[in-house]
């Protein structure tokens, strides 16, 4: 070796030694925090724990849950947030499989995300079950942690509770807005519908004033008045039913009733509308009477409504059909009454079918008078059918294809066994009736109608006057309004009942409301019965008569 070569080698060795010493010093001083390891010409970098500390802090404190899964889907690491979210200690979370925390109903969803430790999809929604059993909506996002081989999987868990809550609030708000819009439309239609009968009624006043001495004119005008007033009464009753539906206050008066009677009455009440539009109405009833438990008046309302709709939404000269049968499909199966009301009218578009039973929905919202109505009929129908434990469905092949409504009502197996209810024996007695109402026109006209029927009737306009009149007139029955000046109906009733002559007197309350609370107060005050305004004189007389018979 030449002296120059030795010199070079010496310098090289010194440089290497210096580098080695430099490296050791840096390690001892903590000036390095990562090392490169070489294995079969493959290099890997390892960091000291202190180097990872900031990342650890970051992962531990983040508001998302984080877990590391091994190839079998077992949790090998989780951050504090995930353990808190699951309401478990970290020791219990680590070692469990992530799928053990997935809500049972969501396992199939989860399997679409992670199957046999392999991520199938990279992200998706599911629900995780906490230690306390609550199931929380989460968003899972999977990431392969190993660069080269399949091994560790990182998963982020985002709690969606708050987001879902916001979504629900937004949806509820939207629904409210929609309902509000429907109510506005409804009010517009209602105003229109209420105004319609007023014009002919006002005209009738003028006609009667001028031509009141012509019996033919009086007959025609009163018939018209009856129709228009009937229209207003129907509207107001529908309105009351809307309020009852929204407060869930409709109660059925169930008794043993006969299907044919219900349907015949419904057909009868639409007969004039039907004839006016020259519709051909086919009625197909079972050959034998069908008895079942139900509310006669309410079911009549159901079929009247369906028939009216059929009339209304079918162009003149159409064919309508009402078809009733009792189905006993299988032995032991529920016996069902199936009534179908079909028409060949304007039909229903497919997208409207599902909404047709919703409140205030009308297929055609224009104010075309031929298709007027409050848009509550079908809501009411569905509600009443539901209350009877039945179902209603609607079919239509589309606009212009007609529609069919099918009502199914539960019936007993012996539904067709004839058990006619004995009709109450009618007498035609004359009564002394006292009417008390602070609406003087109401009281006067009712008393007038009763007198025309051969009864003795007197009208009073407040509670105190009613009590004095009762003492002096000694009527068979007193019809008391509830809200009256000086003395209300409850107090007047109690005063009359407290007198010896008033103990057996028939006392009937009349009111504009029929809330359960009022009914209770009416019974407590000592009334025998309760009627809702407007009072139909014929119905009032029937009631007085039946109460008199009972006594």
């Amino acid at each position: 070796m030449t002296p120059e070569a030795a010199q070079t080698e010496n310098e090289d060795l010194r440089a290497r030694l210096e580098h080695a010493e430099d490296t050791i010093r840096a390690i001892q001083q903590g000036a390095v925090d990562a090392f490169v390891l070489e294995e079969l010409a493959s290099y890997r970098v390892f960091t000291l724990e202190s180097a990872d500390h900031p990342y650890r802090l970051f992962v531990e404190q983040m508001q998302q849950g984080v877990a590391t899964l091994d190839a079998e889907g077992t949790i090998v690491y989780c951050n504090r947030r995930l353990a808190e979210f699951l309401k478990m200690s970290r020791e219990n979370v680590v070692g469990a499989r992530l799928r053990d925390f997935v809500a049972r109903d969501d396992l199939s969803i989860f399997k679409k995300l992670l199957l046999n430790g392999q991520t199938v999809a990279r992200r998706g929604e599911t629900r995780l079950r906490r230690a306390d059993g609550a199931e929380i909506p989460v968003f899972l996002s999977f990431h392969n942690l190993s660069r080269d081989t399949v091994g560790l999987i990182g998963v982020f868990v985002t709690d969606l509770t708050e987001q879902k809550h916001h979504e629900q609030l937004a949806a509820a708000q939207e629904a409210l807005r929609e309902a509000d819009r429907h109510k506005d439309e409804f009010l517009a239609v209602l105003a229109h519908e209420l105004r319609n009968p007023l014009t002919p009624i006002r005209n009738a006043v003028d006609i009667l004033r001028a031509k009141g001495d012509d019996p033919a004119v009086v007959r025609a005008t009163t018939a018209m008045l009856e129709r228009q007033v009937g229209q207003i009464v129907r509207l107001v009753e529908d309105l009351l039913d809307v309020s009852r539906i929204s407060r869930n206050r409709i109660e059925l008066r169930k008794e043993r009733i006969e299907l044919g009677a219900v349907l015949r009455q419904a057909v009868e009440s639409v007969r004039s509308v039907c004839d006016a539009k020259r519709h051909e109405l086919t009625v197909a009833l079972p050959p034998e009477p069908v008895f079942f438990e139900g509310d006669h008046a309410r079911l009549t309302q159901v079929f009247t409504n369906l028939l009216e709709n059929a009339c209304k939404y079918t162009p003149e000269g159409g064919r309508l059909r009402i078809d009733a049968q009792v189905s006993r499909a299988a032995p032991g199966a529920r016996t069902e009454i199936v009534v179908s009301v079909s028409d060949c009218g304007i039909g229903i578009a497919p997208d409207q079918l599902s909404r047709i039973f919703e409140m205030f929905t009308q297929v055609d919202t224009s104010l075309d008078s031929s298709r007027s109505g409050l848009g509550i009929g079908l809501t009411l129908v569905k509600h009443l059918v539901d209350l009877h434990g039945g179902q209603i469905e609607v079919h239509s092949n589309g606009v212009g294809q007609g529609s069919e409504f099918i009502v199914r009502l539960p019936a007993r197996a012996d539904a067709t066994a004839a058990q006619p209810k004995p009709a109450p024996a009618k007498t035609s007695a004359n009564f002394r009736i006292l009417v008390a109402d602070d609406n003087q026109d109401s009281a006067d006209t009712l008393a007038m109608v009763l007198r025309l029927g051969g009864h003795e009737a007197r009208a009073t306009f407040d509670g105190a006057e009613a009590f004095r009149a009762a003492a002096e007139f000694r009527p068979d029955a007193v019809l008391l309004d509830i809200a009256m000046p000086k003395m209300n109906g409850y107090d007047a009733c109690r005063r009359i009942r407290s007198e010896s002559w008033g103990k057996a007197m028939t006392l009937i309350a009349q009111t504009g409301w029929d809330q359960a609370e009022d009914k209770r107060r009416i019974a407590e005050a000592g009334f025998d019965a309760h009627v809702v305004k407007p009072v139909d004189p014929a119905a009032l007389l029937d009631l007085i008569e039946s109460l008199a018979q009972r006594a």
Partner: protein
Amino acid sequence: VKNSATAPAVHADAAVHSEVYELRLYVAGHTPRSVAAFTNLKRICEEHLAGRYRIEVIDLMEHPQLAAGDQIVAIPTLVRKLPEPLRKIVGDLRNTERTLVGLNLRPAGPAA
């Protein structure tokens, strides 16, 4: 990912110190020592080599194979590619004097 920080080459005493320093800093992601080494290196270069240095940062976390070229063992490590001869300084360059000696900007003291 390679990061280069190149400062303008014009300087008042360019005639005296005309050599351009080519430096290569090996780091491992954003470990505290890696970040400290880069910060220290930037500061020292700006103070002593303003306008005539170029720093290349090599992240071995991303590209571990690049450790082979300069035979890097501990991280961070600074390699002076130019001027020759090649010099390596291991650690986060916290000691400015030692770093200056390593970069040949100071004569080695008696203790070194």
